[in-house]
């Protein structure tokens, strides 16, 4: 009985061991079968890094017109948007005329009427002055005539032709006309001063009104609306900015636009990443640009670039031959291409960046080491931390971040295109 029990225990134990061995073989086979596969690469023989950075910009005119509210405006409707090209005569904004204090056209007419009234007043004053002057002239003529008659009568009296009474009568008449003339001159003098004062007042009023009228009618940087309160522009314009409020305070910018198809000085404005910006200005690389996915053959002359470092902003002045190919508001794509030599350049697909793949960041690179083990010649990964020096189109320049990090030389084999997430000391199968 004891022997039977022992045999049974032994049998169970053997079955257990057989199962363990079978599981061991199965898992060994699976582990070898599902081993992550990587392709092996080496650092590039030619350690030249071709770096291409892309960014977009917009063609903008250097000449812009800014229109500010010269009074409080009540906007009923805004008919355009920023960055929009508007055909000539299109509605820009419509003012709420029921709330608006003045219709600017009516105001102009009133101004003109006032000017006319002043002009009439001025003419009336002038007429009055002319009348006064004529009256003085007439008094002078009467006095001179009376004086001549007196002198002729005096001659006749000395010759005894007329009596003394006739002479005295003539003398009284001439004296009376002289006094009348003197009164007229005196009156004219005072009236002339008043006239001059009135004339100055009227002229100044007219000038003020003319100034107002001129401002309403001629200046394009003021809101001038028609009788329905519609503000429009007579040119085809690119709206750089349009206000988005219904009530605009005096002095606020309502609209900023530039006139399209003009001979204005065009330029391309673009905002760049800091490193691209630095590259362009420190290294002076070639810059190409596309419009509507069509690459323009000409590369931009980097010397014509103006920069605003605070905003990482570039402004490319467009040369004449390029100006024919771009228009205001065109979106263009730039490419900055550079070629630079580095000590270690590897394929981008072999780099696992920590965060974003950009220069200054760190990355992991897995070198493949071979070792003789109980499983034969095995390939395993060795993880190293490296600093990204520059990122090219398909390649990355790196350097060891720490002194104990494995240096990548021309004989190093690097894991590339991994079929799984790589880990340090992971066994891998190298595929061709």
């Amino acid at each position, binding site marked *: 009985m004891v022997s039977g029990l022992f045999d049974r225990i032994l049998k169970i134990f053997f079955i257990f061991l057989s199962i*363990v061995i079978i599981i*061991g073989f199965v898992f*060994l086979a699976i582990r070898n079968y599902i081993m992550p596969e990587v392709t092996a690469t080496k650092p590039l023989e030619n350690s030249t890094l071709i770096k291409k950075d892309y960014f977009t910009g917009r063609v903008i005119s250097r000449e812009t017109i800014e229109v500010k509210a010269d009074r409080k405006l009540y906007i009923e409707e805004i008919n355009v948007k920023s960055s929009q090209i508007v055909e000539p005569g299109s509605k820009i904004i419509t003012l709420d005329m029921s709330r608006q204090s003045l219709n600017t056209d009516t105001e102009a007419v009133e101004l003109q009427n006032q000017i006319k009234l002043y002009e009439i007043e001025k003419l009336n004053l002038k007429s009055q002055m002319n009348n006064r002057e004529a009256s003085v002239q007439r008094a002078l003529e009467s006095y001179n005539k009376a004086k001549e008659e007196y002198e002729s009568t005096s001659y006749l009296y000395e010759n005894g032709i007329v009596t003394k009474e006739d002479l005295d009568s003539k003398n009284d008449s001439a004296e009376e006309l002289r006094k009348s003339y003197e009164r007229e001159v005196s009156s004219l003098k005072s009236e002339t001063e008043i006239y001059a004062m009135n004339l100055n007042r009227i002229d100044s009023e007219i000038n003020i009104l003319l100034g107002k009228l001129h401002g309403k009618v001629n200046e394009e940087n003021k809101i001038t609306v028609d009788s329905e309160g519609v503000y429009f522009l007579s040119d085809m314009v690119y709206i750089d900015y349009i206000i988005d409020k219904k009530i605009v305070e005096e002095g606020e910018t309502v609209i900023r636009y530039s006139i399209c198809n003009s001979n204005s000085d065009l330029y391309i404005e673009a905002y760049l990443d800091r490193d691209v910006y630095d590259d362009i200005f420190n290294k002076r690389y070639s810059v190409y640009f596309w419009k509507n996915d069509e690459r323009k053959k000409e590369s931009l002359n980097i010397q014509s670039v103006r920069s605003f470092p605070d905003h990482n902003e570039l402004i490319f002045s467009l040369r004449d031959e390029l100006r024919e190919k771009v228009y205001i508001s065109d979106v263009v794509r730039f490419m900055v291409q550079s070629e630079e030599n580095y000590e270690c350049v590897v394929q981008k697909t072999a780099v696992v960046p920590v965060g974003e793949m950009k220069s200054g960041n760190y990355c992991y690179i897995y070198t493949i080491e071979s070792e003789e083990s109980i499983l034969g010649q095995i390939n395993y990964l060795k993880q190293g931390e490296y600093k990204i020096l520059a990122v090219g189109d398909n390649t990355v320049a790196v350097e060891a971040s720490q002194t104990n990090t494995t240096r990548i030389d021309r004989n190093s084999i690097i894991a590339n295109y991994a079929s799984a997430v790589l880990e340090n000391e992971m066994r891998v199968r190298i595929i061709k």
Partner: protein
Amino acid sequence: MKKFTVKLLSAFIIIVFIFPILYTISHSFMDGYQLKNNEVEIVPEIFNIQQYYEISVEKNEYFKLYINSAIMTAGVLLGQMIVSIGAAYYFSVKKSRYSEVLFLIYTFFMLLPLQITLIPNVLLYNSIERYLGLRLFNTQFAVILPGVFSTLGVFFLKQFFESMPQSYYEIAKIDGASDLEILLHVVLPYSKNAIAALCLLIFIENWNLIEQPIIFLSSMSKMPVSIYLNTLYSSYREIFYAGSVLFMFPVIYVFMKIRDKLKVMVLKISDEGR
């Protein structure tokens, strides 16, 4: 009193032989914590199969060497059986002056310690590689070939074949059987137990190889489990006992399977001795 002494001695011998096996099996069911803290304990505090799980699922490189052991043992076993049966038949049946001398030389080689033949074998392999371009060193053939030509099997089977009644050979010859037919249809069926016993001995000897792999193999990947156990003990103590049990398993299993045949063989040899 004498019987009691014999029984006591027998019990002592059994304990001495059985204890290491039981100790290993018992420890294979201990967890790593207990193994680390106290290896003197025999019974596991918590019976678990953690070691077996780890060795079969997580650290299953062990089984790569298990395959190596199996290949080498099977190679030697198969080769040695073919050579031994053929040679033993020749020495026992085809007796001549030369065969006696040849068998004497054969027996002499059996007496040589293994260590003496190892270095000449290395030199032989180097020569073969140099003159024939056939690389044997650091291959499993380097271990299998000397095993194939081991003299133990020849000696063992010759003695057995000679003990066969001569009438069997004579009847077969009268029936017109060739030597090969006599060997296959008369000698081998008669010698099943002897061959089984020899297989067990060859299996045990080659499953536990130590010296030959160390000398002839340089890559760890080609070594048998018997070599790896030492590494396992020093590096992966937590699975060593399970590894040892799994290593013992084929030997014990084969022994259990053919122990009856071995018993018959032993009884037969003892009968003939009387």
